[in-house]
């Protein structure tokens, strides 16, 4: 198991946002985490990447307990993230943003290789490498955020709503790229509003409701689950 979360609890001030969730991600999987607005998807991501301290439970990654590890050290362990809202550095160029992804890495040759790989996945970024991140379109920023997370060369890639704000054609494209990244060997935990796409591409999925996991199964099982269909797929 690459990632194993047990009974995870998280407090915002005095309000508990996660009430003890358990989930796991195996090596090589795409796992989708779906749920309504405010369910706690982004909060789960923050707990995994270490941006917010947890108040209970444990997070094990790649064989060790990382529950209390600083966020920047978790990146070195192999947890990469494209955060909600993209988090593009507005005053840095596209290239500098991508270089930030490789901040902890010293292997120049491998960095160059990964950069070429990101430019191959997202040719648009190559064209705009000198442009300031803040002036990119929303879709371009999304590509940059995903590409930058790949530059950390993660064992586990956390994607928080990578399709948010994208045109339908681009949504299709970004999901294809996610599948490709996975096929090239990166394990992915995918948070999505677009449950249809996410579940059809994921090996497994979890449904989060107000800070609790209420359902889990393979992507196909969840896609055909009547309750999931009604609540998240817009099918009556």
């Amino acid at each position, binding site marked *: 198991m690459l990632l194993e979360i047990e009974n995870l609890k998280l407090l915002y001030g005095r309000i508990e946002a996660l009430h003890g969730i358990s989930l796991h991600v195996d090596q090589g999987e795409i796992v989708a985490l779906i749920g309504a607005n405010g369910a706690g998807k982004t909060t789960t991501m923050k707990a995994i990447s270490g*941006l917010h301290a947890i108040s209970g439970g444990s997070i094990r990654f790649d064989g060790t307990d990382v529950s209390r590890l600083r966020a920047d050290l978790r*990146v070195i362990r192999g947890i990469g993230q494209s955060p909600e809202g993209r*988090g593009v*550095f*507005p*005053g*840095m160029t596209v290239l500098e943003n991508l270089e930030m992804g490789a901040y902890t890495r010293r292997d120049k040759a491998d960095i160059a290789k990964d950069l070429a790989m990101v430019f191959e996945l997202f040719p648009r970024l190559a064209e705009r490498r000198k442009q300031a991140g803040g002036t990119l379109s929303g879709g371009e920023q999304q590509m940059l955020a995903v590409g930058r997370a790949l530059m*950390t060369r993660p064992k586990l890639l956390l994607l928080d709503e990578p399709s948010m704000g994208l045109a339908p054609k681009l949504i299709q494209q970004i999901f294809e790229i996610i599948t490709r990244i996975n096929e090239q060997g990166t394990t992915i935990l995918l948070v999505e509003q677009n449950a249809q796409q996410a579940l059809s591409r994921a090996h497994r999925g979890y449904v989060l409701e107000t800070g609790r996991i209420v359902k889990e199964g393979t992507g196909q099982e969840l896609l055909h689950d009547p309750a999931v269909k009604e609540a998240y797929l817009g099918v009556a």
Partner: protein
Amino acid sequence: MDFAELVRGFPELTTTGLVQGAIYALIALGYTLVYGVLRLINFAHSEVFMIGTFGAIWTWAVFGLDSNSGAPSVPKALLLIALAIVAAALLSGSVALLIEVTAYRPLRRRNAPPLAFLITAIGASYALMELMGTLTQRRQVGAPALLPTKTVISIGGWSITPVQLLTLVVAVLMMVGLDWFVNKTRFGKGIRAVAQDANTAALMGVNKSRVIALVFVLGGLMAGVAAVFSDMKSGNTRYNIGFLLGLKAFSAAVLGGIGNLRGAAIGGLLLGLVENYGSALFGSQWRDLIAFVVLIVLLMFRPTGLLGESLGRARA
């Protein structure tokens, strides 16, 4: 208003204004660096500078020089100045780091509100000032005259002394060096990343605490260099020298656009010049008033300062 005075003195006013401005600018960089990363106005920075002015004088004292000593040979003087720059920069850098580690870091750990930081900054500033006041019996301490005061370069009505020339050269080198460091090096990228989006920077593996420590040290180094030239310019220092100079340097940082490195440099130089021209025009008793009137008026028209924006966005 004395326009004749302004016109007659213009070349010299420009030189002395730039020299004073360079000192403001070096100090202003420290305010702007810390603000860029923490959105904190580090009021204790004025005392980081003040302690540097003593650091330089103590260094010279170690070599047996005080305000009554005769001028050493020029090579020896340059060596002594270089030593003082290193010593003062290290001392100021250390004091800045100490303030961060003992005063601000514990507050961050506790998620303290911004007001707590502000009060702490003012408290730290006052404590350091009183500490140095007590250590020096609140006396003015003289600096040795190291370089000859005769002019080295004179073109037409314009002339410059060795100290002035050295101040400008070193200040420009420091500013260019800092600009290069922040924009081109890996650590510099880390600083800009934290300034632009601290959470995302952490997701890139940037150690925020280390970046914060680094900006305090960098600001301290700059203030230490400014301190040496302040000593040489005015010939003395005092435990409360940081108060007005710090306030003006802070104004310079705001003038240029706080959080913006190049803004701090430009704001400092501009403030030095305007102050000088203004005091020729209205009389030197108005000097300190002019600086703040300019600041207030400018902020009315450009609330984010001349260059505006934040540290990381300086290049966009």
